[in-house]
């Protein structure tokens, strides 16, 4: 064989031309740059709220749970309410990334990243409340089945233990899922970043370079994680609902609870995604990536889940009446017309009635309206849990010891702090990680380009 002609080889050796970056990269990485005064103001607000709550919590540990508004027989209050609320919020992320992934609903690409992020942060926030609400936080490690000198284990029959397992599993899996999806984008960022970000992304991106082996494994992993996360997300909120359904409290003890809670969770989760993404899209001018089309799809989901939730409300009342069990009837009567009627009607209006407006396409595509509605739904869903927990407990079997619970200010501070806790993470996320799954968005672009060239 003869060696190749020298000139042809020489011809090939030329400096590679400077690469032209893709639009998606530029637009989406830009989000992470710098940070306006407003941004830092928000961060300060969030962190402040969290610190205030932390202070109150330390005081509570020192002084005793009595500083909260608990009144016999209502032994669960705002803390558990907020716990369930955040667990609910956590569900949209996994749903969007996992379930829609399995259904090959490509429109998810625009929002799944931020949704997953929310999942992670929401679960972390929720987990705080398990600790905040117990009487002896310093002994709460008893709840873990760890080998100990006492030779004493834990009670796996208790829904609270199911909770512990479900929440920890959910936190782990959603973090993993979030990160795995992030790796290719981190590589993109790595290739363009400088300074400390360069170092950070180099480490986090694990030397990703999009080779065929990597993509193969990656696709497979995402598929399997989606497959695992889908039943998980359904189980988690079922388990949370069983905290109530497994008890004998009138208004809690209902078979409908698991599906009802899951639907509610997805409902509130989507609402929260909207609440967060609408401003983000506006501020960072991402209209091109997060389009009204995405929002409309989400509002379709809102409509669907709202109908399910509304149906659950109706079913509860029907069963209470139909069962002819006096305590059940009383409990539900008190719910609607008793001391807590305001909460109940807030819940019914915000979750059951207002979302029906989404039947109109005009409103589905009206972003400001969606924003307001999503806010209302968040409020409504918090009150849903409040109504279920508090009214259930305040009117039980022994009329002699019915009681009224009203949250005390320390409780409310801590609840507010939980929002700060959640938001600080989300704000941080905006500046550190690509807010949209760039690689996946690009996949669509490239396809489009290819087909644009008429194949």
């Amino acid at each position, binding site marked *: 064989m003869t060696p190749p002609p020298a000139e042809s080889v020489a011809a090939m050796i030329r400096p590679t031309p400077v690469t032209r970056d893709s639009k998606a990269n530029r637009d989406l990485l830009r989000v992470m740059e710098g940070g306006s005064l407003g941004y830092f103001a928000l961060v300060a607000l969030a962190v402040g709220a969290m610190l205030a709550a932390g202070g109150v919590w330390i005081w509570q540990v020192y002084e005793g749970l009595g500083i909260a508004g608990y009144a016999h027989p209502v032994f669960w209050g705002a803390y558990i309410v907020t716990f369930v609320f955040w667990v609910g919020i956590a569900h949209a992320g996994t749903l969007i990334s996992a379930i829609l992934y399995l259904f090959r609903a490509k429109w998810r690409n625009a929002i799944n990243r931020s949704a997953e992020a929310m999942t992670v942060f929401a679960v972390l926030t929720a987990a705080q409340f398990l600790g905040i609400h117990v009487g002896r936080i310093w002994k709460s490690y008893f709840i873990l089945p760890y*080998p*100990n*000198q*006492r*030779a*004493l284990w834990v009670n796996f029959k208790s829904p609270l233990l199911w909770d512990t397992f479900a929440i920890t599993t959910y936190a782990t899996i959603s973090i993993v899922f979030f990160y795995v999806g992030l790796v290719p984008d981190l590589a993109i960022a790595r290739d363009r970043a400088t300074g400390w970000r360069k170092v950070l992304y180099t480490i986090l991106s694990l030397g990703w370079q999009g080779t065929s082996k990597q993509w193969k494994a990656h696709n497979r992993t995402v598929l399997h994680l989606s497959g695992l996360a889908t039943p998980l997300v359904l189980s988690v909120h079922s388990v949370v609902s069983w905290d109530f359904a497994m008890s004998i409290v009138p208004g809690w003890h209902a078979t409908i609870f698991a599906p009802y809670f899951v639907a509610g969770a997805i409902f509130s989760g989507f609402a929260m995604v909207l609440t967060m993404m609408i401003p983000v899209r506006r501020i960072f001018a991402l209209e091109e990536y997060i389009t009204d089309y995405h929002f409309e799809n989400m509002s379709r989901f809102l409509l669907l889940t709202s109908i399910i939730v509304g149906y659950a409300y109706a079913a509860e009342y029907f069963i209470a009446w139909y069962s002819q069990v006096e305590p059940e009837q009383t409990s539900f009567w008190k719910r609607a017309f008793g001391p807590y009627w305001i909460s109940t009607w807030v819940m019914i209006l915000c979750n059951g009635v207002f979302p029906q407006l989404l039947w109109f396409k005009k409103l589905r595509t009206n972003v400001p309206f969606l924003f307001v509605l999503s806010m209302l739904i968040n409020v409504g869903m918090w009150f849903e849990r409040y109504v279920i927990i508090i009214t259930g407990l305040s009117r039980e079997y022994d009329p002699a010891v019915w009681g009224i619970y009203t949250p005390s200010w320390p409780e409310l501070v801590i609840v507010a702090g939980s929002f700060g806790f959640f938001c600080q993470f989300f704000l941080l996320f905006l500046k550190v990680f690509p807010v949209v799954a760039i690689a996946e968005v690009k996949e669509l672009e490239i396809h489009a380009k290819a087909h644009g060239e008429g194949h």
Partner: protein
Amino acid sequence: MRSIHLTRSLPAFLSALAAAGLLAWAILGESASHADVGSTLVAGSVCEAHELKALAAEDPHVSVEIPKEFDKSFPTREACLSHAAAEDPDSPGPLQPIQFSHKHHAGTYEIDCQYCHSGTDVSPAAGVPSVELCMGCHNQFPKEYDQLEGIRTLKEHWEAKEPIQWEQIHRLPEHVQFQHRAHVRAGFDCQRCHGAVETMDKVYLTEDTIWWPWGLPSKKLEMGWCIDCHRENGASQDCYACHY
């Protein structure tokens, strides 16, 4: 006070004596038999006297001088040694307000545990003997025993009608209700939990650790340790047996 001081540093004191003895023997050889006053050892208390006698007995070359007032049989040598050992800060266990030696009482003289710790068989609590009980015996003992600091302290308490504040060694948490009588009735020796007290001059918490299959230790008086024994002997594992 000197005697007390000497007795307290008894081990050092003895080794010093031995050294002195050897030195004398090395230098003076045979002539040490009529050693001069300089190398004569003088006892400052009955307890020292006991030690010097013992020394002289095993080494005729050492010349010891026992003043008349210290040439007594009481307190006995055992008493002196126990008393000294009971206040040895280097031995395990906390120092008690009185140099009381369980070895001396329960070991040497084989006094039954329940003679002092009465009620163990009928009551949940094991009684701590009253000063009166101690005095019951110690009143009858010869005056010489007052040379021991412990005895003097005891009598001071008795005069002042002041209870003695012992250091507690075997202590369970507040939420444990222990029934001594149940365990005594079941025929367990005190040693099962309290260790071989009759061999201790100064009582301390003996080491007794069980290992669970999952590789964790449970130390004496910890819950796992109790449970282990309860399982071994088919005793109740009802939480209410101990916690209420």
